[in-house]
């Protein structure tokens, strides 16, 4: 989709482009790239996420100039940033809240893909790359939360690294290898800092592949149908999508600024302003909000290994989603039953997040078990079966064309048609 008849106008541009066609590449992918013209605002989160990644990298590089990765000095170096570094408070609050905004955007992005079936053929690789990015984001965020060396940093790191001790036979050795000792301590902090600095650049690499893979088949769209070959369904990326993405981004930045300037600590835990103390365990150890659903799944199982397997399973099952969903219709707009289940999944994940923040006892434990069960039922049972059982609504022939096709791209309907004829 990137073939263009672009020719640089300046003499230098021509000279350079013949030797390295960067200008042609940018022109093809950032300007002429044909984009469905019916994209709604749920499609603006790709751009927003790129902004989040760049913001995190820039603020993070500046923070690293002033931060000291040492168990005795990390906490006070963060206070040094907050008090004495020029605008250090601003840079740190952007970075800390930026992580939350990054996850807010990525969850919307993922649920958009789930609603409109953006993971389905021919976009499986885009989806898999996206999930890998999400997994790396969680790793980066978790390690970043450890760096201030507050109580939640320390105890969160202790809980999460201890999960690996559930691995049979080698668990204990693996955990000590991760720690670099016999408990979370200075070696753990320094390696987490190193990895926290590395991972965003791995993410950046995957983002480039994610966009590359996207630009092969082109964007999915709210109707979920393939575009007409003649280009009547599309607009060039620039200026149409650029200006729309920019508008959504500015609105997003207003929300972002609201947190940074007026509620910079509401998304964090107050215990993390207490310096890490290996001798004092906090009353409730909770991860950051964006990891709570997985934390709830982990704790819903009475067996440690079982909990770990389910938690990782909950993430990795997403990789198989393109093959678990058997429906030929992409967009939930034309899938009345799937739409109900989609909202049930949204609710389910929110409930998991809520119980993840509560103590794992009594009614909360029961709720977390039911919600965990549904999470897996949704992907393993509901999605494969719906493709065969659901009667989908008629799908339009093209974005520009209001004519609705009489047939349905759905297995069940197709079978029924066969039987009737």
């Amino acid at each position, binding site marked *: 989709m990137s073939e263009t008849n672009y020719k640089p106008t300046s003499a230098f541009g021509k000279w350079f482009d013949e030797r390295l066609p960067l200008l042609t590449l940018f022109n093809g992918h950032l300007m002429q790239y044909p984009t469905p*013209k*019916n994209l709604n605002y749920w499609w603006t989160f790709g751009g927003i996420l790129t902004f989040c990644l760049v913001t995190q990298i820039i603020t993070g590089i500046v923070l690293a100039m002033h931060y000291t990765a040492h168990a005795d000095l990390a906490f*006070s170096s963060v*206070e040094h940033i*907050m*008090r004495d570094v020029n605008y250090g*408070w*601003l840079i740190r*609050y952007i970075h800390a809240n930026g992580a939350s905004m990054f996850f807010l955007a990525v969850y919307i992005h993922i649920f958009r893909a789930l609603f409109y079936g953006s993971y389905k053929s021919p976009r499986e690789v885009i989806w898999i790359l996206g999930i890998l990015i999400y997994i790396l984001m969680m790793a980066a965020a978790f390690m970043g939360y450890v760096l201030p060396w507050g109580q939640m940093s320390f105890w969160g790191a202790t809980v999460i690294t201890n999960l690996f001790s559930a691995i049979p036979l080698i668990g204990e050795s693996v955990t000590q290898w991760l720690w670099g000792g016999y408990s979370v301590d200075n070696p753990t902090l320094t390696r987490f800092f190193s990895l926290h600095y590395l991972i965003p650049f791995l993410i950046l690499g995957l983002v480039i592949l994610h966009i590359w893979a996207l630009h092969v088949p082109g964007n999915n769209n709210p*109707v979920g149908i393939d575009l007409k070959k003649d280009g009547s369904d599309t*607009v060039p990326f620039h*200026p*149409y999508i650029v*200006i*729309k993405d*920019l*508008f959504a981004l*500015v*609105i997003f*930045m*207003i929300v972002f*600024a*609201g947190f*940074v*300037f*007026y509620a*910079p*600590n509401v998304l964090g835990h*107050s*215990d993390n*302003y*207490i310096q890490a103390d290996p001798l004092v365990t906090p*009353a*409730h150890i909770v991860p950051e909000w964006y990891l709570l659903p997985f934390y709830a799944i982990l704790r819903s199982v009475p067996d440690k290994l079982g909990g770990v397997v389910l938690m990782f399973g909950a993430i990795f099952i997403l990789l198989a989603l393109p093959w678990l969903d058997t429906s030929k219709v992409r967009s939930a707009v034309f899938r009345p039953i799937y*739409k*109900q289940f*989609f*909202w*049930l999944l*949204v*609710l389910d994940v*929110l*409930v998991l997040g*809520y119980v993840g923040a509560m103590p794992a006892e009594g009614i909360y434990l029961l709720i977390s078990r039911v919600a965990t069960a549904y999470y897996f039922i949704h992907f393993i049972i509901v999605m494969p079966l719906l493709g065969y059982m659901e009667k989908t609504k008629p799908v*339009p022939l093209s*974005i*520009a064309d*209001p004519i609705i096709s009489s047939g349905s791209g759905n297995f069940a309907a197709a079978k029924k048609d066969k039987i009737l004829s």
Partner: protein
Amino acid sequence: MGKFFFAALFSILISTKLFAAGDAAKPIQVDWSFNGFFGKFDRAQLQRGFQVYKEVCASCHSMKYLSYRNLGEKGGPEFSDDEVKAIAASYEIKDGPNEQGEMFERAGLPKDKFKSPYPNNKAARSANGGAYPPDMSVLVKARSGGSNYIYSVLMGYDENPPPEMKIEEGVYYNKYMAGNKIRMSKPLNDGSVEYSDGTQATVSQMSKDVTAFLTWAAEPHLEKRKRIGFKTIIYLLIFSVLVFLSMKKIWSRVETKM
């Protein structure tokens, strides 16, 4: 229907009590001068609060991330340069080693960190019956409930605890603490300090003043943050209108209705 379910269940979840730990009373809500979009500290209150900290709290609680110079900086108590120098000079600071390799005592300077009451954690613990008085630099941010909570704890002492409660030796009843128990004896009594500006030193007044001071200490750039935040958001709002109008103009060239 899905959306309805979602809305209903979510509202039930929100309305349920978030924390049920230790039957602590809900903190008193105070209308602080530093609340809200344009919140600012009251300089006189911060100066009084510093006096309370210096004369009462500082005998047990350190504030090791603050320097005396901070007391004169913009957005804080804004003591004059001479006052800051005088405050710093009233402390003996250990410095060195000097040319002879000896540690020595000298009068404090504005660049020095607040002098801690104890040389280390263990000394602090042993002097307080095993309970470690927390450093107060970021205390307001380190407690859920923030300023309201700190104020409430200072106000929450009661010499007559509920009869069914067992209060051990060295423990005090405080209805805002988790478990309603605190290891710190009641720190403030009417007239604990004498304010030079004529303000009545009631327990409530001193508690408010010192809490305001601790809030500034935990967030010394609060005023600047709110000021920049307001400008940033106004800028973004205007920018969003301009981008929106440009977007409408650009998209008017395309037929988008299905």
